[in-house]
């Protein structure tokens, strides 16, 4: 672009020098400043990402050098003794997110399929906007509902029933507290459903019509057309949507903090309280007194950042691979 301008500028200079000086020259200078200025802002996005990684790494160094690998395998979290092992938080984050994904994925994909493939276009868009509303609700409001309505309901009706009928299983051992891993999983599932649904819908809309028409023309029922022609075409995009949902679930803070019980323990029972990585940061970070405590929380943040970065890169690549042909870069 700059080169072109120079060439154009040179031409006008030779033919009509005074005019070029008054008109073209200020334009060129303006364009150069414009380019540099906008480039500065655009590059700052890259800089922010790098700065984030740099800051989190630097701030966690004291903890990394003090605890090393023990940080990931230790399950003692004691701010007074300055003994920090993050295993219960890793465990809580992984279990709650994976279970939430298992619960949310079939529901989301089925909803996305119903919206795009089965119901009339108008009804589909109406449901899609309702689901988008669900995505617009702030996390803290899910948490409020979770802790004041859902958790008491779980404690009153669902969990006692589970204990009575399935109490012999290790997953339903113990007393019904309400606030528990189960509450965390449920609230997470509710929260990530809109994300997976919305992106799956986008992916499904990007599947060419001819795919479906070919299947239907061969005599397939709607479901068979979906199974044979639509899902295989969009599967990497849907996988991307699910992975993106996983990233959101792992980083979700407020709602989970409010319902999961915040107890650093490793228990296989869905009824017992648990703790996640973002929750321990949310609860303890503002009140740390020892430097090493701050650093330990920073290291948990660093792990969280690394995991979500990997998840997002993977998910974006998958979604881009499907939708890129349709809409450049929109995902």
């Amino acid at each position, binding site marked *: 672009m700059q080169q072109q301008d120079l060439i154009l500028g040179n031409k006008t200079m030779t033919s009509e020098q005074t005019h070029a000086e008054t008109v073209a020259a200020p334009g060129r200078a303006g364009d150069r400043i414009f380019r540099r200025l906008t480039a500065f802002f655009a590059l700052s996005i890259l800089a922010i990402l790098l700065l984030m990684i740099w800051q*989190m790494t630097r701030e966690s160094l004291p903890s990394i050098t003090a605890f090393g690998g023990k940080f990931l395998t230790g399950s003692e979290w004691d701010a007074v003794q300055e003994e920090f092992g993050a295993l219960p938080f890793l465990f809580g984050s992984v279990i709650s997110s994976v279970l939430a994904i298992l619960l949310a994925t079939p529901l989301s994909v089925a909803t996305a399929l119903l919206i795009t493939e089965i119901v009339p276009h108008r009804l589909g868009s109406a449901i899609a906007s309702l689901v988008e509303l669900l995505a617009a609700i702030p996390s803290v409001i899910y*948490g409020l509902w979770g802790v004041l309505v859902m958790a008491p309901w779980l404690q009153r009706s669902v969990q006692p029933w589970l204990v009575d009928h399935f109490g012999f299983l290790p997953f339903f051992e113990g007393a019904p507290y309400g606030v528990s891993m189960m509450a965390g999983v449920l609230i997470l599932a509710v929260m990530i459903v809109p994300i997976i649904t919305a992106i799956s819908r986008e992916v499904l809309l990007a599947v060419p019509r001819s795919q479906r028409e070919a299947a239907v023309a061969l005599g397939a029922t709607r479901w068979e057309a979906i199974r044979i022609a639509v899902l295989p075409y969009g599967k990497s995009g849907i996988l991307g949507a699910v992975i993106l949902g996983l990233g959101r679930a792992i980083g979700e803070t407020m709602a989970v903090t409010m319902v999961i019980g915040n107890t650093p323990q490793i228990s296989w029972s869905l009824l017992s309280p648990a703790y996640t990585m973002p929750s321990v940061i949310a609860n303890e970070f503002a009140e740390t007194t020892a430097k090493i405590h701050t650093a330990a929380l920073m290291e948990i943040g660093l792990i969280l950042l690394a995991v979500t970065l990997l998840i997002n890169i993977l998910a974006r690549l998958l979604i881009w691979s499907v939708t890129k042909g349709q809409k450049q870069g929109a995902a």
Partner: protein
Amino acid sequence: MKSLTFRHLTNGVVTLLMVLATLAVLTPLGLIFLHILKMGLSSISLDFFTQIPKPTGESGGGMANGLFGSGLLILMASIIGLPVGVLGAVYLTEFGSGKLATAIRFSADVLAGVPSIITGMVAYSLIVVPMKGFSALAGAVALSLIMIPIVLRTTEEQLKMVPGTLREASLALGVPLWRTSLKVMLVSAAKGVVTGILLSIARVAGETAPLLFTALGNQFWSKKLTEPIAALPLQIFNFAIAPYEDWHKLAWAGALVLVCIMFALNLGARMMGKTQRLN
């Protein structure tokens, strides 16, 4: 080949399952709305908008300082974040075909997926630690880090939708690129850009996690930007987890107000988006 009846039956069963799944997805939405409406309407009063929280144990009070604080935080975050997002998008539209631009787009998408609590930690280490105290400023920086990637991507998308002929016409008339870009491109895409900005504001208006250890929250009015400041979502959080009935009521009222703000912003954004498409 399976019999036709069996295939139709499978089709019917799967369709039914999809309908059930959709209902299961929409049920929590309905329940949450019902509760917010019911509890919020029964606890909200004029005091909510004019009073600050009462000390523990006293009934009444409101969240006026939280509402004001949230507004101020969003305003400051917009001042920091919008120029970066909008002008960054202008760069991507005008000069963004190379590898660098792809890297910028990719980092924006990745940045949008970073948990908001991490942006809080980064703002803490960048602002709170050097300035030796929690502050409104730190909260605004944390929020702006969330706004930037959203605004960047939506603005770029809107700029791309401006017909190329418009741009070429302007350039052909001898208008410099920078004026074309700002006066023709951005102005033509204005409604779409505003839509993106409104959505990004809606997103940060409800953010709690990044404010926990930046803005921190404040029981009273804050007088300086270098002091901790109250915010509506923070107050909802603190009141919801406290063991007092009265505080729960205030939290519900706060939730109702927050949801209304949210929907107003989303609705505004959507209507803007619609008129844009019609033009």
